[in-house]
């Protein structure tokens, strides 16, 4: 009887440690990536809006060649902007088109983030459930609510 219980506890703990916790970590990492993308696109949107507001037709920037070595670069025509639309494709947009795309993209990213958040919550709930099961098996007093 006791042996069975010990075995079960061990199995549950293994499940938590080997399956649920790595899953949780992976989900959190994925969500962070999406957050980053969201930030990139929101930055781009702000920059384009900035260009629009100032009516910039040409600009001079510094290009990072790598290892923090910069070189000056001229952009002669700012009307056409190439935006990364994912999967390695870049599309030539005008400013307004770019802004439209960015809003769609942001929406999608927000949805993705929500998905990941839900996934993370469910994994956390599962962990909690299994821990509770272990507690019951060991017949320990219920822990304080937190």
């Amino acid at each position, binding site marked *: 009887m006791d042996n069975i219980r010990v075995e079960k506890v061990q199995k549950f703990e293994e499940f938590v440690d080997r399956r649920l916790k790595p899953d949780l970590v992976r989900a959190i990492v994925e969500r962070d990536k999406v957050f980053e993308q969201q930030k*990139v*696109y929101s*930055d*781009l949107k702000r*920059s384009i809006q900035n260009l629009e507001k100032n009516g910039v037709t040409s600009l*001079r*920037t*510094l*290009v*990072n*060649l*790598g*290892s*923090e*070595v*910069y*070189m*000056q*670069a*001229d*952009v*002669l*025509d*700012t009307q*056409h*902007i*190439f*935006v*990364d639309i994912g999967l390695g494709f*870049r599309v030539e947009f005008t400013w307004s088109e*770019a802004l439209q795309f960015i809003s769609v993209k942001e929406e999608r990213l927000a949805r993705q983030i929500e998905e990941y958040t839900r996934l993370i919550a469910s994994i956390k709930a599962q962990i909690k459930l299994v821990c509770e099961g272990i507690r019951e098996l060991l017949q320990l007093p219920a822990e304080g609510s937190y």
Partner: protein
Amino acid sequence: MRGKNPCHLHHDELEAVLYVYQKLRKAEGVKGTITSLSSIFPVEEAQKAAKRVQDAIADRQKELEHLHSFISDNINLVNLVQKLPDELFHDVMVPFGKAAFFPGRLVHSNEFLVLLGEGYYAERTCKQTIEILQRRGKFLESQVESLKANLMDLKAEASFFDATAAEAAEGLVEIREDYVEENPAEKMPKSGLSKPDSSEAENVKLVAEDEEYARIMSRLDELEKEELAAQSANEDDDEEAETDFGCSINQESFDDHFKSLELRSQVLQSKVKTPITTATKEPLGGNFLKQDSSDHPPLKVQFEDSKIHYVPKAYNMEKSEAFGKPLSVSKEKIHAASVSTIEGFKDTVIGHPEVTANYKKVSGDTSSLSGSKTSFDSSKAFTGSIIEHAYNSQTKPAEQTVTSSQSTCSRPTKPVSRFKMQKGGR
């Protein structure tokens, strides 16, 4: 699992060897500890440690790869920077944020803005930039070198842990013995304390000691010769003889046992006040007197013979000591006494095969002779044998050690006395 059977055999053998070892060391009086390696480093622990080190090695390897990628990047950048000034401008896609580009071109192809660190940038030409990049490359190389050295260390450590784990699994043992400094002056009080209490019972048991006693006897012979030589020499030579005596005594093993011999003749201790003997005085006086020696009459007689002869001399000696400064006249007598006592000891020793037993008896005899403390004379008589000790003490242990070897070579007269001794024979 498969190694278990041979392992067990190994253990049995090992235990046998250890047993023998312990016996031997006990016989020699050396205290050592034997601990199996697995008790200090449990096998699992050693394996765990090895695994930890392996993990550290993996980390370092990753770091190394990282550095290598930096180095290759750096080389590529140097090539790029070298090529850029070849043209006035280059058509490129100018990044605009992370997700967007503008079509544009690089201008001012010989002007680079290089990060110096801490947010400071410097405007450099192509050549200057290349210099900076090469210096960075060198720094990276040195980092790689240090990392490689670190890796080697860790690998050595890992192999050590692996070896330790394997040895612990095999059942290796560690034998540790305290290093005893070979200082006779230090040893004297020790042997003096230990011998009267415990050694007697032990001595009888240990066969190994027989050899020791044989050596002692040969030493005694030598001493005797020297004494004779000293006797034959005139008054001035006396002193040299003393030093000579000290020197011969100095030899360690002999010294030890000689001391034990002396200690057995307890009366000496009670009479003579020397730093060496004071500590042992009490136990000797108390214990030995009470010991009954009723079981060995023949030996007693023998000893009595030797002793009786020298009673007057011993008495003499005693008096001289009591009166403070030594009398030159009595010195010769002392010599005689000491020699004779040695002879007496030797006789008893030779007479019986079991030397150790003999000594025991001797000590018993002395107590019987002295009776129940009533006859102080007898104790004095025994001082005859002790005299030697008194003699010895005159030279002082510390001096013995110092002068031992020096006296032989530095003093020209001494070899002469030795020659005499040899010629005179015995």
